[in-house]
């Protein structure tokens, strides 16, 4: 319960700001004792829940207690020029700076949303594609791109060095079996090919694909292309629940 509430705060400064705004406190004259106690209470709740997330809050709580203690000292500390130092000063400055960035963040959010109500041209609507299909995806390079590329190379190398040649059991599928299977799967109103073969082995995908083509040719199913260029839907044709395979062709199969 409380955790959900504290999760609403971006950090310790954000929580502190909440108390200040709630009580309409003058940020330049924070009643530290009261705020420190309230803050501590809020953090105590947090501590029960998630120590990791609490660390930053606990640090600030300690800072508040320290300021409170300094405020209680009978004689104020003096700076180089003999002026009394307000122990709250540094915290107030940080808080003010934080408030500014917080507002800036809100501002950016508004801009981002306004900007994204406008759509730029889609990537595919380009004559360049028709003239020369893109060979490689290209990037505008930054140092981070360089680092990411290095990461990718490392990942590939790690995979290669880790590769244990698993003896995969030989699987084989017969096209007529897959035809029946596809038909049974699409009877309810069709399915995308991607969904039909999701997480299946390569031979399964190949034979199922051949089975779908075969069924489409026999007009037992319809193949429908939609918005996804990498997938298509397989829809049943009313009344067809099986294909008569009494005729010619020998059973077609593929193996891993």
């Amino acid at each position, binding site marked *: 319960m409380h955790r959900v509430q504290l999760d609403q705060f971006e950090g310790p400064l954000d929580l502190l700001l909440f108390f200040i705004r709630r009580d309409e406190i003058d940020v330049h004259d924070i009643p530290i004792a009261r705020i420190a106690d309230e803050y501590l209470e809020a953090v105590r709740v947090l501590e029960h829940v998630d120590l990791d997330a609490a660390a930053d809050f606990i640090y600030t709580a300690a800072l508040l207690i320290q300021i409170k203690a300094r405020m209680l000292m009978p004689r104020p500390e003096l700076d180089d020029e003999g002026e009394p130092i307000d122990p709250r000063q540094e915290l107030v400055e940080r808080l003010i700076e934080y408030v500014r960035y917080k*507002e800036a*963040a809100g501002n*950016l959010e508004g801009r981002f949303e306004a900007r994204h109500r*406008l759509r730029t*041209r889609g990537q595919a609507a380009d004559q360049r594609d028709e003239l020369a299909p893109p060979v490689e995806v290209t990037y505008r390079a*930054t140092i*981070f791109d360089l680092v990411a590329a290095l990461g990718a190379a490392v990942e590939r190398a790690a995979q290669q060095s880790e590769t244990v040649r698993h003896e995969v059991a030989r699987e084989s599928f017969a096209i007529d079996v897959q035809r029946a299977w596809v038909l049974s799967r699409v009877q309810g109103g069709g399915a995308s090919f991607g969904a039909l073969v999701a997480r299946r082995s390569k031979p399964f995908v190949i034979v199922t694909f051949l089975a779908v083509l075969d069924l489409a040719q026999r007009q037992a199913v319809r193949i429908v292309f939609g918005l996804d260029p990498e997938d298509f839907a397989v829809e049943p044709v009313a009344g067809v629940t099986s294909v008569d395979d009494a005729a010619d062709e020998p059973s077609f199969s593929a193996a891993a």
Partner: protein
Amino acid sequence: METVRTTDTFDQAVEALIFASDVPLRPEDVARAYGEVTGTEHGAAEVEEAVGRLNAAYRTGGRAFRIQRWAGGLRMATVEEVHPFVSALFEDDAAKRLSRSLLETLAVIAYKQPVTRPEVDHVRGVNSDYALRQLLERDFVTIAGRGEGIGRPLLYATTDRFLEQFGLDALDALPTPREIEDLLADPAFNRERAKLLAEMTAPSPIQPAPDSDDAEPDQS
């Protein structure tokens, strides 16, 4: 007639280039590309004029897009009015929302750049590691070299893509922060907190201890 024909070709080329580009195109680049083909000399100002004519034509013709100026370049985008239709077909707006920690981190970097990670952490009072990584991955932020301090920490700065994605022409188009008093007095600042207020204040078992030594202004 000749002059009109030339203007037409120029405007058409400008339109085609801006249309075809995936990123904001600098007017200079448009002028140069045109000049390369025709063997003539052109400047950025001519491109800007052409963009003015094109946008005027879009307006009177009822076109659904305009040429915008983002990240110092020119880019075509749909007008605000057609947003409902566009979002009905491409339901990605929710996915594009940025978290508050991302926005805060981005704001600090945008205003303080180039800036190190410890500086960002200090301003926010929390570790910004995760948010920073996300920003790098989304190409809103990039590494801009190293600072001078101990260990020469990496410096971070915003990218052109940041400007483009936030509809800014240049960094100086960022609004200057308001005065602190205005901010804290503004009821719109943090309106969502008003809801939390009731929930959080009600069950608090510990009452504020009125320290006698503390000079507390009004309440006690």
